[in-house]
């Protein structure tokens, strides 16, 4: 029973669907070697963090460009029209580019603001990983949910939370998306269905599984028309945590509409993934629980997007969860307080050559999807958006003192009964700084 379910790995998603169905029936119990994956270098890539081999560097950077053009070549063979041989249309390309540039520009501005003292506490930046966020989240509807970790600014931006609100939240102002009460690590937006922002690693995974559970419950018990999907983003370190495995089990058991997205950037603060994990190939942990495990090059937004498309479609059809491991890299330290001394500079340099934004720009220009001028215009626009966000945040007021006691409970009587025998929340002085709680 478990065979076809456990061993089915989505592979070569870029091949047209007709060939894929044939492969599906063939792949029963066949674990595909990672070399057949587009962009997958899982066997050899893990050694990068230990070795500084220049040969690997050149091979890998060659892969990124080569594979894209391989795919393009393949598609050209299969279709006649030049336009449909590309992975994306012009509009899609510009949307993806703009989203990634926004993520990058925003995070760079965060670093600046932090060092100027406008932002404080723990700030974890997403530079380098934009392809994962953009590749996945831009395929979602507004009602779909995203659950993230403390590295959540760019997930919030991709999901649609305005840059102004995110920046204000980081500055701790009352105009932030959580009125300044959450902060960098706790971005929530009910409107955009961003369910956090969690500081504890692994905490978001059961919450995401719960949101997927709700989706299924709404469809099957409440008989509503609901095919909402949830995406759970988390890192390589989290994949050793108990909650991760508990949720893989329950999601597969109950066939929940969720995609588990591992942003494997090889490092958990200063702990290399290889030092912490008995079997570093995270995608393998999916089939152990009865769901497909996919590995994808997380520095290439187009590949991520193709895999994401299939995984999300699978979940929407009701076929259950997927585990997607995205090989990616963070260009900065774990947080702005991390001196980032343990990572090998050669490794960092290597991944800098695989910058996802540069790769997409190259793809767009090489395939004449847009001109250099249009891309520059987007970059300029984003710069203005980010500048505007900073200005807005700067000028916004800090929360009033009375805000301290607000929002603890949805039902304010939860503060109990005051000395005068009435509910405390009815006391007009309740939310002033002098109120006794």
């Amino acid at each position, binding site marked *: 029973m478990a065979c076809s379910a456990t061993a089915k790995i989505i592979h070569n998603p870029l091949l047209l669907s007709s060939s894929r169905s044939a492969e599906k029936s063939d792949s029963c119990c066949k674990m595909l070697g990672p070399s057949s994956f587009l962009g997958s270098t899982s066997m050899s890539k893990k050694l990068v963090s230990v070795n500084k081999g220049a040969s690997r560097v050149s091979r890998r950077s060659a892969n990124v460009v080569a594979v894209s053009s391989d795919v393009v070549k393949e598609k050209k063979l299969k279709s006649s029209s030049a336009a449909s041989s590309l992975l994306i249309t012009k509009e899609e390309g510009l949307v993806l580019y703009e989203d990634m540039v926004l993520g990058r520009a925003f995070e760079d501005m965060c670093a600046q603001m932090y060092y100027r003292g406008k932002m404080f506490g723990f700030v974890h930046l997403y530079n380098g990983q934009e392809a994962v966020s953009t590749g996945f989240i831009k395929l979602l509807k507004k009602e779909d949910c995203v659950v993230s970790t403390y590295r959540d600014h760019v997930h919030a931006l991709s999901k649609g939370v305005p840059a102004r609100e995110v920046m204000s939240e980081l500055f701790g102002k009352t105009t932030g998306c959580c009125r300044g009460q*959450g902060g960098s690590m706790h971005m929530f937006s009910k409107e955009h269905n961003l369910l956090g922002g969690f500081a504890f690693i692994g905490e978001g995974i059961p*919450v995401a599984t719960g*949101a997927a559970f709700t989706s299924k419950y709404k469809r099957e018990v409440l008989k509503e028309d609901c095919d909402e999907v949830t995406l759970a983003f988390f890192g390589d370190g989290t994949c050793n945590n108990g909650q991760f495995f*508990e*949720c893989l089990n329950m999601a597969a058991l109950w066939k929940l509409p969720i995609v588990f997205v591992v942003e494997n950037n090889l490092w958990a603060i200063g702990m290399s993934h290889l030092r912490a994990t008995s079997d570093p190939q995270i995608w393998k942990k999916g089939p152990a629980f009865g769901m497909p495990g996919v590995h994808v090059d997380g520095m290439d937004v187009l590949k991520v997007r193709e895999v994401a498309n299939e995984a999300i479609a699978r979940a929407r059809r009701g076929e259950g969860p997927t585990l997607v491991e995205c090989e990616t890299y963070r260009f900065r330290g774990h947080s702005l307080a991390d001196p980032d001394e343990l990572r090998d500079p050669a490794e960092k340099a290597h991944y800098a050559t695989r910058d996802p934004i540069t790769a997409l720009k190259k793809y767009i220009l090489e395939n004449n999807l847009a001109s250099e001028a249009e891309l520059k215009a987007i970059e300029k626009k984003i710069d203005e958006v980010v500048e505007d966000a900073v200005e807005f945040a700067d000028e916004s007021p800090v929360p009033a003192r009375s805000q301290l006691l607000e929002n603890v409970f949805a039902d304010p009587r939860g503060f*109990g009964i005051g000395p005068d*025998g009435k509910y405390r929340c009815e006391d007009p002085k309740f939310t002033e700084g002098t109120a006794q709680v």
Partner: protein
Amino acid sequence: MFGFIRQRAACRGNHASSLERGIRATALRTFSSSGKEMTVRDALNSALDEEMSADPKVFLMGEEVGEYQGAYKISRGLLKKYGPERVRDTPITEAGFTGIGVGAAYYGLKPVIEFMTFNFSMQAIDHIINSAAKSNYMSAGQISVPIVFRGPNGAAAGVGAQHSQCFAAWYGSCPGLKVLVPYSSEDARGLLKAAIRDPDPVVFLENELLYGESFPVSAEALDSSFCLPIGKAKIEREGNDVTITAFSKMVGYALKAAEILAKEGISAEVINLRSIRPLDTSTINASVRKTNRLVTVEEGVPQHGVGAEICATVVEESFYYLDAPIERIAGADVPMPYAANLERIAVPQVDDIVRAAKRICYRSH
């Protein structure tokens, strides 16, 4: 418990029937005479049943809640009535399924998560506190979490240290949570219904030894829209000389102690806290201002306990009304032993309460 009472009866020379009457009178004290009795187990079952039938978004999730009919049979019959999607048996993954419950609550459902005992909630406490209790605040009111965590709390009989801890003080110190501790069947029904309807996370601490106890219930309590307010304590027995606060099983002990004290001419007022967070300090203070003496009773350890909090608030608000220092009766400051005689002395008993009350009544004479 009853063995002890009978011993006392023998040495005091009271005949058994009046003592029996006294015990039943304790239970019947404050209710109208509808004559109907209900066990706490049935009360919880009926509350769950009614809330699940009223709102299809309410569902029950936990270990053995479905086919096993509940580890303590609290969810008996619910699987058959509502089906396996609404009464979910889970694998043994507290952190996982608690988190799933919280995520479901974030996104619109109303889960009731059952812990087989609250000791197991420690494996899931990250979700109870960090993703449930704090979320409404962190999201500035956008994400409320209408979830109930329920299960037996505190010592049972001979279950050993890892199954006997009382968590009232632990959960009572978390902003964002509401913590309820029912005693009688009426409490169980009213508070569980209120908890399920409440839009905030509620920790509902039951007691295994109370499940089988029968209490009379009024017709009003049997109505399907019956709800008790969260944050209001109940005065189970009125009195003038000393206030005894207690919650959960200790309310029964306090009431028995009050009976014994009454025979010695000390009129004790027994307060059933019903709610640890928010704590009904106004009822407690009003009572202390009337009686001028206070004994707090709890099963947990004294340090940082519920009694400690009550003492602090009474000293803050009603210091000048106190005629004697406050007595704090709590469990022994040890993990729960297994041996039956040791377990008995590790938990407060009725005579501990009686002695404490007498101490503070005589102290000023």
